[in-house]
């Protein structure tokens, strides 16, 4: 049943498995769709689709497949009134019903169309009009072998109508790189180790047995520290003017990192285009919030994962010249590149995330500086995919 629908879903990259499909078949045989298209819609979506990001895609496929049923939408409201409160069914007469089970769908549609034009009142218990409790092939709560269900449970709000609203459009994954996908990516940044501090509250059975044995059978419990995430992060944000177009994505990245509570330590600093003698605690880069870059570097161990976020687009003098920093008040004694290389050498793992899509790197305004910085730091595009890859490289074994 509906096997085409199954393949249509799969053709639209909705990864419906055979198991789920069988579950749907079981549900249908139990009548959980309650004989309505709306019920069928919720049933299939609940069983087959497992993320709200796919709801919109599903709605699209559902519409595509069931669109030819849509003309039932045109049933006038008064028909539903006549069909309300189904009348009690007449005694079953097999002869009368069975004779009519051979109508095919086209014939039934034709009949429905005729009735819609000529019916002006409620009719129950009969065989001709759209009604309840009878043997008419049109209506509900009756005996017809095959027919078109009109009204009944869920009839007033049509499934195609729900699907047509496509209210989940916002959730489509290809469309957004939202906070959640950032968070998800950062959750992968975990490295478990035996911690050096923290309470010893996990029983080490092996050691306990060993120690108890040594203790001539007198119980000696041995505890150890549980494993915890040991990842420490140093996040450096470019807060310069050319980053403004990416402020939304950067602010989401910032929130994701800030809310991730699984890091052992997290330090966040800002810089303007390139790092020099000073880093800033505030994105506004005001002088009050400046700290010496060297003192920051000296406080942090090699194990800090360094994440740069910036467009790496700047004049080459900002990288190559003493005093070439973009900020007029600031005179740098050492070149920007020296500083970048110093940071790179100071830590085990570094990564640079660039909000400019990779394909533009060779042609963008900052093509030269992107290339030069890319020689020092591994660089990834700031997208869900690039982020996942980059973060993975931070913890992968070398």
């Amino acid at each position: 049943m509906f096997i085409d629908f199954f393949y249509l879903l799969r053709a639209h990259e909705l990864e419906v498995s055979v198991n789920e499909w069988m579950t749907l078949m079981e549900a249908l045989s139990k009548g959980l769709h309650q004989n309505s298209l709306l019920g069928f819609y919720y049933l299939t979506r609940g069983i087959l689709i497992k993320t709200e990001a796919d709801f919109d895609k599903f709605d699209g496929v559902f519409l595509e497949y069931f669109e030819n049923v849509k003309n039932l939408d045109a049933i006038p409201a008064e028909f539903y009134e006549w069909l309300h409160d189904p009348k009690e069914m007449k005694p079953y007469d097999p002869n009368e019903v069975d004779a009519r089970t051979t109508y095919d769908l086209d014939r039934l549609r034709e009949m429905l169309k005729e009735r819609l034009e000529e019916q002006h009142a409620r009719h129950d218990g009969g065989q001709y009009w759209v009604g309840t409790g009878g043997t008419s092939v049109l209506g509900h709560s009756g005996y017809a072998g095959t027919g078109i269900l009109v009204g009944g449970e869920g009839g007033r709000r049509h499934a195609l109508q729900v699907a047509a609203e496509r209210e989940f459009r916002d959730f489509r994954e290809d469309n957004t790189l939202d906070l959640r996908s950032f968070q998800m990516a950062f959750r992968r940044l975990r490295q478990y180790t035996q911690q050096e501090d923290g309470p010893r509250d996990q029983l080490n059975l092996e050691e306990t047995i060993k120690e108890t044995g040594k203790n001539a059978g007198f119980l000696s419990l041995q505890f150890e520290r549980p494993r915890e995430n040991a990842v420490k992060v140093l996040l450096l944000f470019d807060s310069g003017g050319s980053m403004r177009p990416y402020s939304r994505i950067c602010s989401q990245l910032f929130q994701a990192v800030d809310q991730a509570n699984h890091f052992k330590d997290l330090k966040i600093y800002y810089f303007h285009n390139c790092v020099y003698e000073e880093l800033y605690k505030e994105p506004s880069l005001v002088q009050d919030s400046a700290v010496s870059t060297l003192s920051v570097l000296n406080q942090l161990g090699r194990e800090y994962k360094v994440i740069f976020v910036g467009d790496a687009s700047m004049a080459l003098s900002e990288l190559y010249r003493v005093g070439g920093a973009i900020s007029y008040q600031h005179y740098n004694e050492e070149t920007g590149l020296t500083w970048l290389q110093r940071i790179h050498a100071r830590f085990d793992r570094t990564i640079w995330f660039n909000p400019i899509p990779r394909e533009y790197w060779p042609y963008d305004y900052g093509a030269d500086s992107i290339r030069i910085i890319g020689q020092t730091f591994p660089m990834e595009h700031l997208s869900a995919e690039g982020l996942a890859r980059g973060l993975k490289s931070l913890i992968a074994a070398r």
Partner: protein
Amino acid sequence: MTEFKGTSQYVVSESLLRSVNIAIALSKPLLIKGEPGTGKTMLAEAISEALGKKLLIWNVKSSTKAQDGLYVYDTVQRLYDSQFGGEGVSDVGRYIKLGKLGEAFRSEEQVILLIDEIDKADLEFPNDLLWELDKMEFYIPETGETIKAEQRPIVIITSNAEKELPDAFLRRCIFHYIAFPDREMMQQIIAAHFGALDEILLEETLRAFYLLREMPALVKKPSTSELLDWIQALRIGGIQPERIEKELPFAGVLLKKTEDMEAAEYHFSRGKGVKSGKNGVRW
């Protein structure tokens, strides 16, 4: 057939109602996702109340292991007991304590089992429960006992989407996403909690609330539960409805972050030239 129809306190959308009943009929776990504060946890309570079945809650934390839900073998206690020659040490069963899942399987009557915030746990956590949720049974090697559900519990699982759940796990669930309630639905929810409210109060409150939610700058959007708290606060404080529009009394109930308070103040004060006041943000 057991059917859930909602309760007087808990307003269910039609689609959620269907999902719940589908899950019950197919005896599959129902996975509920949605923004915080859309009543995911309350759903299980409502189902339990409506169906008159006992509710077991398994609160998942970041340190929770799948094993904790099945049973815990209290080795330390047993070792201590053996040291002092306590009675019944040889009976391992005495030291097996069933977890929530175990309890739910053991129960003679059908129960509702809420596995709350499954995404808090480790990434592997859901995978470790596949068999148990599928077959509704597990084996305790220490005692050689198999705990099998006589009455398959109705399992409700909630997730805040902090982590992605594994596909194999998802395939076994019925999925439902609770969308944030629209105005109409919200009015029903408020009516369910407070009965008939002053219409102007309701109007003004909802207006301010949805205005706040639409602000892109907010780090943490206020949710349904915060709105309900806010209305409660406004009622207790005897705030005149007209004031809601001008000031935002008890803004702290809605907005939990300093930067959000500032953002709200900035957003609303533009062009209206109003200063910050004592009772909240004025604009």
